[in-house]
């Protein structure tokens, strides 16, 4: 017989199914993260999953790592402390679009700037799910939310471009529909030194889908399937065929010396070594 391969990574004693709504993309992203860590063969004792507040941030309690469910927007600040104190730990930050880019936007850009050695999985569902569908910094202009009943008047962030501009070592985007590509991106990000970001586009059928008449989970994933282009393919296409599509793949990937290693040099200097 074969058992579900992800079960060995689930938290003993924790009741399932998890809190996410039927068809929520976050569960698919969680699966991709679990498989990526399994592929790397890392010990669960060395894994720390840190999150903030929101739908995505409920993930850590379900996975059998060291886990730290923090306050809204602050996951990256906590994670920076965990990693700096014990650089041997592999620190994954689980965050959402509101958590990372609105209330936590300052921590996000500064962690990228200082090249904190973290892997941030930003589960972007374009809306605040936990609190009932308010618009977020990634809700596209004109789209509806409970606090934007006539459509938003604000422009949205591109988290990958933001992270790169702030100094990230690695940025990539995947979609829940293409869970295998996402898994590969996460695996690559985890092995990167320095600040790495994977933006995982994750459908929210319950709120975003309903408010914007995009249908149920299946319809939203089908839309992703039809409207996602890998960056390598996109580069060869005329601009008008790329407009409005989700571009996936690795956008930025440079070799860097992470903050923790630079700080080790500071220690040596202070100690006169």
């Amino acid at each position: 017989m074969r058992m579900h391969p992800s079960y060995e990574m689930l938290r003993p004693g924790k009741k399932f199914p998890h809190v996410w709504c039927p068809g929520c993309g976050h569960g698919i992203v969680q699966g991709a993260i679990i498989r990526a860590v399994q592929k790397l063969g890392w010990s669960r004792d060395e894994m720390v999953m840190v999150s903030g507040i929101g739908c995505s941030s409920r993930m850590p309690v379900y996975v059998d790592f060291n886990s730290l469910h923090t306050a809204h927007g602050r996951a990256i600040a906590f994670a920076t402390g965990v990693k700096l104190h014990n650089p041997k730990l592999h620190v994954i930050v689980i965050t959402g679009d509101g958590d990372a880019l609105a209330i936590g936007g300052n921590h996000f850009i500064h962690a990228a700037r200082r090249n904190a050695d973290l892997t941030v999985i930003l589960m972007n569902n374009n809306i605040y799910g936990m609190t009932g569908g308010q618009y977020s910094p990634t809700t596209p202009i004109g789209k509806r939310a409970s606090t934007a009943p006539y459509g938003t008047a604000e422009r949205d962030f591109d988290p990958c471009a933001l992270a790169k501009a702030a100094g990230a070592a690695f940025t990539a985007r995947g979609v829940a529909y293409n869970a295998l590509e996402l898994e590969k991106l996460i695996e690559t990000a985890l092995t990167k030194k320095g600040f790495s970001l994977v933006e995982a586009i994750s459908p929210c059928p319950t709120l975003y889908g309903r408010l914007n008449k995009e249908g149920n989970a299946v319809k939203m994933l089908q839309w992703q399937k039809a409207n996602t282009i890998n960056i390598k393919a996109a580069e060869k296409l005329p601009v008008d065929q790329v407009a409005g599509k989700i571009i996936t793949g690795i956008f930025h990937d440079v070799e860097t010396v992470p903050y923790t290693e630079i700080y080790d040099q500071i220690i040596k200097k202070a100690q006169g070594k």
Partner: protein
Amino acid sequence: MAKNTDVMEARLTIEEDFKKGYDLPVYVYKPWCKSCEICVAFCPKNVLEMGEDRKPIVARPDDCILCKQCEIRCPDLAIFVTREKKK
């Protein structure tokens, strides 16, 4: 109604079912299934369909190509392929 169970309970139930002779290429652990239908919609061979209890059933097991598209896309880890593809 979905019943909340932890992973130990899930494993025991599944192992029990296999001991009793479960022999289909795909297994659905129903207590965790939220009936989102993603597995049914994205199966390339149309192996699955929704049952009367709004949980997937393995309707056409012989068509399964063990591609795991259902397994990797199930948000609830409630479905998995029971055999490895022959290499």
